[in-house]
């Protein structure tokens, strides 16, 4: 029987550590924190975009990225679905419905469920239309190509890109700029973050993407997760420094 590798054991240890720290933070944060963390700027901008599009009677577009399946190994789209859920739950009664576009079949189906759930929770199932969420392509390029004509339409109040992206998707930012459509990009992909940063769009940097909190929605989870991340980061930094010192002193091989 093949052995279990050391990296697997380290991964198990990290998951265990994360669970323990999460539990401690969750127990310690039963009351609202005295000095809460500020919201991430990019997510505040999504909130502002939602209010503006609602006041102007324009439609919001959400692009959900390339999806869960295929060659993507990131969890980015879980955050994308969460952002979609927040947006839809707050824009059900807007004059113009919010449209979402997915680049993956599984994501398109889940997105359809999220949309239906948002209307059902608002007791407005009769307003639900399946065409408000669509699969716009089954690859990174296909998804982008299917979405660009929708972005070019008149009457769009803004576009939110969320999920797994590639630097190539900066074409969307370029079109949004030319059409004067405000764009916010929330992605966990480093290369895409760099490309969107260069394009001048609002973009999440680093792990900010994994801390979605729009307005007051998701605040408790955000506070807990930010604190847990800070604690684990601290532990990891100490671990790395100790390991480096041990290596330098010859204790570790």
């Amino acid at each position, binding site marked *: *029987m*093949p*052995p*279990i590798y050391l990296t*697997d054991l380290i*991964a*198990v240890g*990290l*998951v265990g550590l*994360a*669970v323990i720290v*999460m539990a401690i933070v969750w127990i310690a944060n039963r009351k609202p924190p005295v000095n809460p963390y500020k919201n991430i700027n990019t997510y505040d901008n999504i909130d502002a975009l939602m209010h503006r599009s609602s006041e102007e009677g324009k439609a919001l577009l959400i692009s959900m990225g390339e999806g*869960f*399946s295929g060659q993507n190994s990131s*969890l*980015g789209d*879980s*955050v994308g679905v969460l952002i979609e*859920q*927040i947006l839809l*739950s707050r824009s059900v009664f807007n004059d113009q419905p919010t449209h979402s576009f997915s680049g993956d*079949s*599984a994501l*398109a*189906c889940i997105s359809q469920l999220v949309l239906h759930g948002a209307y059902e929770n608002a007791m407005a199932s009769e307003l639900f239309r*399946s*065409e408000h969420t*669509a*699969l*716009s392509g089954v690859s990174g*390029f296909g998804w982008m190509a299917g979405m660009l004509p929708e972005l070019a*339409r008149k009457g769009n109040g803004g576009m939110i890109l969320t999920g797994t992206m590639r*630097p*190539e998707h*900066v*074409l969307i930012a*370029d079109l949004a700029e030319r059409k004067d459509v405000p764009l916010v990009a929330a992605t*966990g992909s*480093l290369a895409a973050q760099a*490309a969107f*940063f*260069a*394009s*001048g769009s609002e973009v999440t940097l*680093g*792990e900010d*993407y*994994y*801390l979605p909190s729009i307005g*007051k*929605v*998701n*605040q*408790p*989870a955000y506070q807990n*997760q930010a604190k847990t*991340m800070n604690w*684990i*980061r601290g532990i*990891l930094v100490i671990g790395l420094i100790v390991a480096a010192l041990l290596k330098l002193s010859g204790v570790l091989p």
Partner: protein
Amino acid sequence: MKQRLPVIIAAISGLVILAAFFFQPFTAPYLGLVLNWAIIVSSVALLVAIAGLFVTHIRFILKGRRGFLYSIILVLTFLATLILGWYLGLDDPAYLIGIQTVLVPLENALMALIALILMSAAVKIFRVRGWSVLTISFGVSALVFLFLNLGFFQFDSIPGLGAIVSALQRLPLIGARGLLIGLGLGALLMGLRVLFGQEALRE
């Protein structure tokens, strides 16, 4: 309870799969079975999503929605690809060449366009974001590493310089590793929140 049950089932399945991934020497056969289920489910999802896409565009054509010409092109090319694929078979060389003749030039043209747009973005970054430590370091590092990685210059012949350049070339990797640790942590915690059913929205 009606709402909790799916969360409990999802959490248990997720935790079992997570454990199975870590202890693959013992769980590989079961993991393979479950992954096959996942492939079947995602294939069905693809069928459902494509049917949805097709119906949506047919609806756009029937309504005469602005830009419905794109919908007509989509429906026609979809049907042509599907029928030819069925008739000739997916491995047919003529069918594959036909698909590649359309896809490869299109993707290349898009890549060329993206190169131009990224170049213009690099020039515009200071106008859009202003002159700050972040933008200046972003611009300078982009230029320096572009220059270093072009491969036009060989620094090995100059003693000492080769080692300095090689150390410099490793800098982006080191920076990316730091960012990736943060992203990994974020993804891990988000995954655990989903597994424990803690991702529900609350104000």
